[in-house]
């Protein structure tokens, strides 16, 4: 899932200052699971904005706002009238969801209510950690399923730096060293020899933005 956090309310209010009438879009997927942009949070946000004298013309939690078809269905059809009444939209979704709403509603300003943080494992309802950086050439085959790009602050591919202590990382001592974790897993799998291979530097051309895939037959 994509982990998000709500922006400080003062920052959101700063963006919305010129507008009186607002429509709010939530996310029924990641932001609902992580409680940053589901129905509860959208209702809370609407209440706080109304307390400041804003008029909420309507709100909707789109099942997956990053799916343009679903977003258009909700904003251009089911809630078209409420959206039309609004001067601006506030989106409580990740950057992909917010960007998709902007593409779907070209004639109104769109503001993000969340910061997008990382692609995560949801460990429990209150805990997630980063697991993937979408690098474009997955390395998990030789790292025991633990991504050193996502879990080592330096993204090292050939083993740890000298900064691990008691299995923890010197950049953040509350976190375990990615390579100690990889080492322990490979040791348990009796595959330590896999760590002896020298891996060439990453092909960062695979991460050149914007990335786009079109599977439509030519």
């Amino acid at each position: 899932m994509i982990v998000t956090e709500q922006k400080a309310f003062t920052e959101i209010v700063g963006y919305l200052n010129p507008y009186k009438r607002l429509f709010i879009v939530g996310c029924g997927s990641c932001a609902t699971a992580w409680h940053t942009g589901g129905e509860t949070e959208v209702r809370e946000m609407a209440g706080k904005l109304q307390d400041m004298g804003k008029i909420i013309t309507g709100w909707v939690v789109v099942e997956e706002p990053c799916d343009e078809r679903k977003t258009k269905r909700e904003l251009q059809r089911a809630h078209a009238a409420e959206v039309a009444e609004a001067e601006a939209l506030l989106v409580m979704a990740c950057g992909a969801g917010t960007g998709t709403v902007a593409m779907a509603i070209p004639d109104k300003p769109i503001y993000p209510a969340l910061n997008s943080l990382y692609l995560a494992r949801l460990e429990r309802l209150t805990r997630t950690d980063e697991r993937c950086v979408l690098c474009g050439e997955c390395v998990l085959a030789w790292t025991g399923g633990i991504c050193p790009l996502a879990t080592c602050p330096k993204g090292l591919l050939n083993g740890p730096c000298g900064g691990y202590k008691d299995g923890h990382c010197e950049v953040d001592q509350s976190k375990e060293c990615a390579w100690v974790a990889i080492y322990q897993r490979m040791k348990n799998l009796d595959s330590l020899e896999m760590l002896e291979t020298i891996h060439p530097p990453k092909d960062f051309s695979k991460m050149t933005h914007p990335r786009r895939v079109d599977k439509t037959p030519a």
Partner: protein
Amino acid sequence: MALLNELFEAKKFVVTVEIGPPKGVDLTEALEDAELLRGRVDAFNVTDQQSSVMRLGSLPLCHLLKDRGLEPVFQITCRDRNRIALQSDLLSAYVLGVQNILCLTGDHVSLGDHPQAKPVFDLDSVSLLQAASLLQKGQDLAGKELKGKPQFSLGAVVTPGGDPVELQIIKMEKKVKAGAQFFQTQAVYEPETFARFMDKVSYLNVPVMVGIVLLKSAAMARFMNKNVAGVHVPENLIEEMDKAPNKAQKSIEIAARLIREMRPLCQGVHIMPIGWEKRVPALLDAAGL
């Protein structure tokens, strides 16, 4: 002046000392410190924005030392430069007469004085060594041919006190395969641990210079034990420092003793004075170097 790999080949016990470029452009003190050790050490190991603190670069100071007839070691880290800049700086070093290169991953930017900076780490210490080795063969990382080949003496680092140490050794072996001709270590205070480490890496058949950091106080030792990965100062040394009326004298006595004890185990010593550069001549005297 000779390159470090030549000294190791000649079976010399090599002595290097770390020297840090200033934050700013006043080189008076750095050059004074180096001058104090003229003829007493084999090379000056110039740090690359150590601890991720922005300073004058390593390469210009290496070049200035070389101009004064002092042999430098250019520390180069992967923290601030991508593969284009790293390879270019290696070529630049060679044309400036700087051929001893110490390849490091580098500290993370979050530990320094510009924690908001973008950390690069396009290469790591292993792929940086590979890049330098390739350049020596007349090729770059893109497989393109060079006009004129540089020649380097390539070094790398290892932490004998890393736990698990096997993880350090796996990486050390990769560094040897990638072209490392010598190693210098993180600070060592336990000769027994170092002896065990040297025994484990003897199959690599590569010269190792033991790292010596001058202890300034018992508090510094305790701080390192708590915060510096792979460094452990044993309790008896901390007590010795604590009880000593003259800390500087005791510091030198301990460091000299460590050097004497570990000298038979390795091929050189790398001294990191961390502000006590002016005391290095006394240390060399005490250690019989």
